[in-house]
Structures are given as structure tokens and as C-alpha cells.
């Protein structure tokens, strides 16, 4: 597979691809289903998703907008938007089902055990308070501390995420920060109470490319220093591939393929993953290559096709694809794909035509 992606040749490359002999799940999600109810009916934004989050790993979730990846992370911490509701499944963390425990217990877990960072760093900071105050709030939200101690911790937290002259910047308001610096503040706030799990929902999407890389490297460094478990959500396979140990590909609310990053990049077994890989340009490519595009668009969740949800756009689709639900099939050691034609995918060189030239 001549995918446009190569693992980042950073010194951490060896670490990322050594498989833990006995992976211990720190969180286990089983059959998670989250629906949106509206006047037009009910749609399943997250449909029967099961996945383990292993201790100390970075698990990447990749998918287009509307694939349910953000709804999945928000379901896990029970912070759903109005109209959305988790109707089935369990999220086992620390021996308890997060979906069943009372709201008050959940408040103690959020932030302290499971922290989250979101897409737009400027929007994630409250405009009426100084950064120092918001950081102090995070530091004291789960442990009471003296003012002096809080300030010291706040300065150290900002320094830790690479903000120059942190003591002075504590008094600044969010709008006085650039996007990249604001995202560092958001990371510092999320890490203030030393969480075990970090949910990063599109942490670099709102940033420019250079800043993106810096923030990703920051996340990677902190993850390694603290042995933290990270769930990284992005629509960009490039971002996911740089950081993740394992990748889950989401489409129309379902996981279509799940594998460790190297396997997914080198031998994808779901046609959708193959298409995604073909869409990514790579500056390191020596020969010019036409980017492929997947024909059609993501399905309307309220009018899903029967059987495989990708079938209408799939070049390998046969009648059997649309006759019943396709389960996730084990295609290798810790490699699963929701496709009945995985052998055919492995045999083919090209799946998608490159006839469509991109003109932008």
C-alpha cells in the first residue's frame, strides 16, 4: 500500500510501535449508543461502539464530521448537548459504570480523573476571567489549597506547557493569547489535577499547521512524562498517525476499522480506510501522485442504508454487503474491520479511481 503517510521518524518511533504484551484497559466501553431526538425522528449518532482504552496508550479516533467521534467522547464523560441521550451501553472505569453512577460522583471524576480539551482554545476559555483565575479554579476544583500554593502551581503549570514568562501572563485575559498559546493554557488547565485519562477532541483543528505540530508534540511529551492515557479525536488522519498507538476509524456512528497505527497505515483492510489514506497528500513523496477521492458523501444518519453503511460509496460492494448488519471481523492480531470483503481489499492495489483531479 503506497499510502501517503509514513510514521513520524521522531526518536519516539520505537516506543510507539512496541506492543505492550498484556495491555491493561483503563477504560472499557461496551455497546455505547447515543441518539439525537428531534422533531424529525431519532438518529443514532453513536451506534453500538465497543472499545478498550489501554493504560498509557494514545488511542486515535478518526472520522469525517458527523461520524460520531465527538459524540462518542462526550458520551463517555456524560456531557452531551441538549437533545442527545445515551440509550445503551456501559463505560467501565475503575470498576464502575460511568453511565450509571450518580451525577455527583461523575463531577468528582470529571477533571480529576478524566480531563478534556476541546477544539477551539479561545472559545474554551471564559472571556471574563483572567487565565490565572481559570487555572486556579482548575487547581482548586478538586483539592483545596492556599492562595500562595495555588499561584505557584499555576505558574509551574504554565511553564510546563511552554508559555514564556508564565508569572506575568497569569493576569492576562484569554483574548490576549494567540491560538497556540491559548491551547497551551487549555492543556495546562486540563492537566491541573493530574488526570489519568485525557480526552482531546480535535485539539489542533483550530490552529495553523506549525502551531498544530507544536501542540501535538507538547501532548506527546506530557503523555510520556505522566504515563497518561489519551483519547485523541481528529478528522485528520495525519494528526492521528503522528501520535496514536492505535487507531479507530469511525463512520456513520460505527467503528469501521480498529488496529495499531502501523498496521492500519501499511495494510488497511476496510475500503473506507483505504480511501482515507489515499486522500492524504504527503510532502515527502518523491513522485507526483494524484489524490484519490471517495465518491459520494457521508450518509444521512436518519436514512441509513441496509447492511454496510459504506456500501453505497464502496467500489467493492456486492449484494451480500447490503443484506444484513456487518459485524466487526477479526482480520489479524488486534486488527478488526467491519467488512465482509477484507481479503479482496488486501489483494487489490488500487480501489478508488484517481480520475478526479483536485483543482484547489
Amino acid at each position, binding site marked *: 500500500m503506497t499510502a501517503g503517510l509514513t510514521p513520524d521518524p521522531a526518536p519516539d518511533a520505537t516506543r510507539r510501535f512496541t506492543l505492550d504484551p498484556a495491555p491493561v484497559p483503563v477504560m472499557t466501553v461496551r455497546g455505547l449508543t447515543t441518539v439525537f431526538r428531534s422533531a424529525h425522528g431519532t438518529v443514532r449518532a453513536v451506534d453500538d461502539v465497543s472499545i478498550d482504552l489501554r493504560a498509557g496508550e494514545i488511542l486515535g479516533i478518526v472520522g469525517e464530521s458527523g461520524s460520531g467521534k465527538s459524540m462518542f467522547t462526550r458520551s463517555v*464523560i456524560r*456531557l452531551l*448537548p*441538549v437533545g442527545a441521550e445515551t440509550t445503551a451501553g456501559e463505560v467501565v472505569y475503575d470498576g464502575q459504570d460511568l453511565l450509571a453512577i450518580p451525577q*455527583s460522583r461523575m*463531577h*468528582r*471524576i*470529571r*477533571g*480529576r480523573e478524566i*480531563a*478534556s*480539551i*476541546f*477544539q*477551539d482554545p479561545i*472559545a*474554551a*476559555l*471564559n*472571556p*471574563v*476571567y483572567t487565565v490565572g483565575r481559570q487555572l486556579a*479554579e*482548575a487547581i482548586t*476544583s*478538586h483539592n483545596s489549597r492556599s492562595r500562595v500554593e495555588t499561584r505557584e502551581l499555576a505558574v509551574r503549570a504554565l511553564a510546563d506547557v511552554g508559555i514564556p514568562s508564565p508569572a506575568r501572563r497569569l493576569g492576562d*485575559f484569554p*483574548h490576549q493569547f494567540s491560538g497556540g498559546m491559548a491551547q497551551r493554557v*487549555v492543556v495546562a*488547565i*486540563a492537566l491541573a489535577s493530574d488526570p489519568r485519562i485525557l480526552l482531546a477532541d480535535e485539539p489542533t483543528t483550530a490552529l495553523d499547521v506549525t502551531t498544530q505540530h507544536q501542540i501535538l508534540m507538547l501532548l506527546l511529551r506530557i503523555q510520556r512524562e505522566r504515563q497518561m492515557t489519551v483519547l485523541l479525536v481528529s478528522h485528520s488522519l495525519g494528526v492521528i498517525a503522528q501520535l496514536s498507538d492505535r487507531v479507530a476509524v469511525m463512520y456513520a456512528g460505527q467503528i469501521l476499522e480498529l488496529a495499531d497505527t502501523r498496521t492500519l497505515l501499511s495494510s488497511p483492510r476496510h475500503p473506507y480506510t483505504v480511501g482515507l489514506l489515499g486522500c492524504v497528500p504527503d510532502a515527502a513523496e518523491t513522485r507526483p501522485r494524484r489524490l484519490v477521492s471517495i465518491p459520494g458523501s457521508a450518509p444521512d444518519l436518519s436514512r441509513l442504508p441496509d447492511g454496510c453503511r459504506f456500501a453505497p460509496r464502496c467500489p467493492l460492494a456486492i449484494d451480500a454487503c447490503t443484506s444484513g448488519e456487518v459485524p466487526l471481523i477479526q482480520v489479524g492480531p488486534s486488527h478488526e474491520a467491519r467488512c465482509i470483503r477484507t481479503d479482496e481489499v488486501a489483494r487489490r492495489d488500487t480501489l478508488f479511481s484517481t480520475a478526479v483531479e483536485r483543482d484547489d
Partner: protein
Amino acid sequence: MTSVVVGAGRSADVEQAGPSAGRETLLRAGGGLFAVIVLAGLLAPLLSPYDPIAQLPRESLLPPGSPGHMLGTDQFGRDIYTRALYAIRLDLFIGIVGVLLPLILGTALGAIAGYLRGWPELIIMRTLDVVTAFPYLVMLIALVAVLGPSLLNLFVALTASGWTTYARLVRGEMLVVREHEYILAAEGLGLGRRRVLLGHLIPNVISPALVFAMADVVLTILFAASLSFLGLGVQPPTPEWGQMIHEGQSFILGAWWLVTFPGLFIVATGVALSMLGDGIADRIRVGGRT
């Protein structure tokens, strides 16, 4: 590239423009006039030798310019100037407390409705609809008439009929702000509902309500005066502008000064507060537009 340049120019404009020079003058003039009125109210005993309540029947209905009675006297021989000065205290108190109470109640209910949604919102907003279905002044009069005229009941009535505007404003802002990512981020930090509501939502939704409150102080003073004029507000002999006009109306043809001077005090206070309110509102809006 162009867009960057344009964008930068625009943001600089906003910062420099600020409140225009005219607005700033308005703010200062209004503030100055208001300060004079407040001081006059506070220093009333120093500014006038008379008692605002004691009656001197021999000096009744003296016209303005009479020796010792700059603005004349009323039918009981009380100095109009003195009574109008003392009335400042009560009228400003009514205006400010009569706005603070509905502001607090309205903000609380609006915030709850906008944050919790569901049945609390349903109950609050439908109650609001019922309250707003009555004309404001009619409801105020009805409430005071039923409860009986007293200062406490006046505040009860002002609060019961005045909270709706604040609740509507705050709920509207709430619906917008609750979707902001920093609210999600605060919830993600594990903060409880009360902390998110008081610490993160209220400070971001309150400014339109505060701007309206500025203007509302004037209106409340006017409505309180109207109630007194109808005999439902402050009771005699307490000096209050509306009450003074009420008492003077039967003499309006022979002794015009009984109603005119308290009226002018109301006008002066109203103008001062309007200018001050507009100026402050302007500043808040500019400050909020970061």
C-alpha cells in the same frame, strides 16, 4: 493576505473608537448632575432650615420668591424646596431598590430557565407570559391596591411585575452562552452545576440586563411617583415627588408651584439618570466587544 490586513485594521478601529467624545460628555454631564442631586438629598438638612413635615398654617400657599421660601410653600405652609430636597432620598431609594430586586429575581429565574431547560424553563417562561400579558402599570396598581399602600408592598409589586424583562434578557443570553465551549470546558473540569451557573454563566449573560437596569431606575421612579399620585404609593406626610404633585393638584389653577417644582425635580433626575445610563451602557457594550 488582504483579509489579514483588513482584519487587523478593523480591530484597531474598534479599540480606538471607544465611546465617542459626545458620549463621553453625556456621561460626564449626567454623572455631574446626578452627583449634585444625590449630594443635595444627603445634605438636605444643611441646605434648608425648615422641617419637611411640620405644618405652619400661617405661611400656607406663599408663591415662589417669597422671603425665605425660594420655591414657595404648600397648603400646609411647608417649604416646597425643603420637601423636594428631602424627597430625593426616598425617590432614589425607591428607584434603586425597586430595580435591584426585580433585577436579582429576573436574573435568577432567567438563568435557571436558560441553563436547566426542560420543565423549569416551561414553568418560568409560561408564568412570565402570564405576567407580561397584563399592562405593567395596571398590574402594579392592582397589586398595590390589593396588598395595601406601603413601601414594602410597593417593592413587592415592583418586583412581581418588573422581573419579566430581566428574565427574558438573561434567558436569551443564556441560550447563546451555554453552548460556548468554555461552559463545556468548565463542566469537563468537574465543576458542579451551581459553580458553572454562578461562576461562568452569570458573568457572561448579565450585561444586557445591567444596561436595561440603568434605564429602568428612571422608569421606576416615574412609576412610583405615578402610584403616589394615585394615592397608592408613599403616604402623606412623607415628602415624595409624586405624592407632592398629588397633593398639589387641587390647587393647580391658583398655586401652580405646588406641582411644578416637584415635577421639575423628577425631570432633572430622569435626565441625569438617562444620560448616565446611556453613557455607562455604551462603555459596557464597548468593553464587552472584545
